[in-house]
């Protein structure tokens, strides 16, 4: 929220003059007849596309020169709002004179940019970007009909945000590279989810095969797993560990290497304290059972315990009997 948001305002105020103009007077409205296509020596392509959720629909006619694969003429009819009509009209304009392969590179974003009055001012408000996607889809449909191939084969990447044309790969990369933790961050970095918002989470205007919330959760989980693995694999020195971690590992070594032999003789030991002094770690132990009062407890046994810990953990360990 900010001062500019307080009035709200209508969608129409934010349409560019070009959108206004093409909505009112589309240049490429209508159909191309078989006769007209024959006159041009062209192959006629008629493609239908619809946005199921809205009920919006478009039919595009292309007259394509079969030798050069160049689109000689393009027309449309659209059932949709002003943005859909203006986008359809601009889509035709961008197609005319280009080859089928060239127009496959046109996206709804190119259409929107061509409808701008000023280079840096959007032609339509964010939530209407969605209505321009149909003009892009129909290009792929027409091209697939012309080429006689499946429409999906023309899509190189899996697109998550149709409005801003952001791929799954881009979103995954941007989360990883920038260590993003929120959907708002993804939108800020990529513009995915900034327009009709359907791709953010289920329950929006359209259902999708991928949602930003799921992608974020999955990538974060992957990153966490990788980090945990890296931490687990990294050899940490005894000196780098906290006192609690040192205590745990000392207990481990004592359990494995020392206590079994003490227990055999009916004794045991307990770690009563751990201290850091002059860069050394002091392990304070107290004997139990038969070890108490054993003549070698303060000499040989103590030296053995110390040696075991020094060998496995750190040469600067000092074992002190208390």
């Amino acid at each position, binding site marked *: 929220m900010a001062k500019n948001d307080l009035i709200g305002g209508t969608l*129409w105020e934010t349409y560019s003059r070009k959108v206004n103009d093409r909505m009112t007077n589309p240049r490429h409205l*209508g159909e191309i007849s078989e006769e007209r296509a024959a006159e041009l020596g062209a192959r006629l392509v008629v493609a*239908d596309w619809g946005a199921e959720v809205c009920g919006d*629909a478009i*039919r595009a006619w292309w007259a394509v020169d079969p030798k050069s694969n160049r689109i000689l003429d393009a027309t449309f009819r659209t059932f949709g709002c*002003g943005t*859909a009509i203006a986008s359809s009209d601009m889509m035709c304009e961008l197609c005319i004179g280009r080859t089928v392969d060239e127009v496959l590179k046109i996206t709804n974003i190119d259409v929107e940019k061509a409808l701008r009055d000023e280079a840096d001012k959007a032609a339509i408000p964010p*939530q209407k970007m969605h*209505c321009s996607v149909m003009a892009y889809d129909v290009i792929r449909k027409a091209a697939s009909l012309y080429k006689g191939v499946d429409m999906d084969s023309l899509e190189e990447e899996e697109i998550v945000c149709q409005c801003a044309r952001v791929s799954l790969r881009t979103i995954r990369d941007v989360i990883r590279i920038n260590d993003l933790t929120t959907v708002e961050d993804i939108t800020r970095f990529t513009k995915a989810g900034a327009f009709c918002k359907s791709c953010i989470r289920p329950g929006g205007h359209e259902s999708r095969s991928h949602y930003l919330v799921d992608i974020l959760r999955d990538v974060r989980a992957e990153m966490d797993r990788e980090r945990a693995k890296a931490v687990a694999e990294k050899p940490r020195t005894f000196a780098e560990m906290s006192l609690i971690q040192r205590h745990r590992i000392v207990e481990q070594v004592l359990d494995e290497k020392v206590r079994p032999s003490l227990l055999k003789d009916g004794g045991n030991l307990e770690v009563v304290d751990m201290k850091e002094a002059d860069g050394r770690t002091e392990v304070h132990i107290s004997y139990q059972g038969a070890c108490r009062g054993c003549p070698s407890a303060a000499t040989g046994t103590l030296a053995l315990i110390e040696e075991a810990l020094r060998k496995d953990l750190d040469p600067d360990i000092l074992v002190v009997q208390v």
Partner: protein
Amino acid sequence: MERVYLDNNATTIVDPLVREAMGPFACEMYGNPNSLHDFGTEVHPFMRLAFDRLYAGINAGERDDIFLNGCATEGNNTVIKGVWYELIRTGRRSEIVTTQVEHPCVANACSFVETLGAKVVRLPVNADGIVDADLLARHIHPDRTALVSIMWANNETGLVFPIRELARLCRERGILFHTDAVQAIGKLPVDVSDAPVDYLSFSAHKFHGPKGVGGLFVREGRSLPPLLHGGEQMGGRRAGTVNVAGLVGMGLAMELAVRNLGYEATEVRRLRDRLEDALLAIDGVSVIGRRELRTPNTILMSVEGVEGEALIWDLNRGGVAASTGSACASESLEPNPTFVAMCLSPELAHTGVRLSLSRFTTEEEIGRAIEVIRGSVERLRRISPAGSGTGKGT
């Protein structure tokens, strides 16, 4: 270009008599009615007259409250949040029963109290687009239901709900009944002595009064904590310095609206029917809801092959102001819940255009609107794939 305003369910022109009545309260009698001096007290008789007119307008009793607020949105919020606070939060009851076709101010206030633990039951509408007493009877339970909130008339379709019957049912079962009457006042008789509603809200600007002022009727003995805390205005039910000009304007607007109910039921209806007949004569046009079940001023039409926003855009160019509930024109792109609840097909939901008249709509304006609408439909059908027109190159 002469413009024709056919969006009276959104807001209305202020009656010039109302504007005149409000005038003196800007620079002459500008005192705060809560002040002790003459500047404050001299406005009291005007306020009293305004309240008399509001009470008479809906036939409220002396012991009932109608308190001034900002709008019906505020009134509806006050009731829903107040009932949550007193009955649901305290665990005495658990549910609010409403419909799937309420205005966002009721729908969203219900969703809000849902996040605070209330259970909200949203009833579907029948084939006529309304909720009938049989359905309501099956969904209310005196041990659970804290409040039933059902609009008197729908803003999109104009369909009128059987409020008298629904309110009586709730009264019999000891359940509080609230109605958003914002689309009913001035269009049909609203009589709280006959319909036993407990809370009823309205906005002045829907019946030729000023914007930013509304009223909430609270029947005698019904408790309701304030939404706005502060001074003693409105007997503590709604704090904030009284909008005296707004109150005076709303009072007169109510009186005029009620006086013109006969005109509304005959002349406005006749003009609406003339427009509707002319529209239905266009191929592929249908109107939602039976005529006799609607407020006399409203038409929600669907034009086959013509998208709603594109149509109101084109009508606007022709000087005719209409509105669309189609998904494409809303900020959220969400399909209109009323259309979804009425089980309209996606295409129908996408073609809905609402035309709403008022007592200020003239015969000439209707004639002009018919002409403009015919032209726009024809033009847009040429653009649509369903159309049969021919384009370039043929």
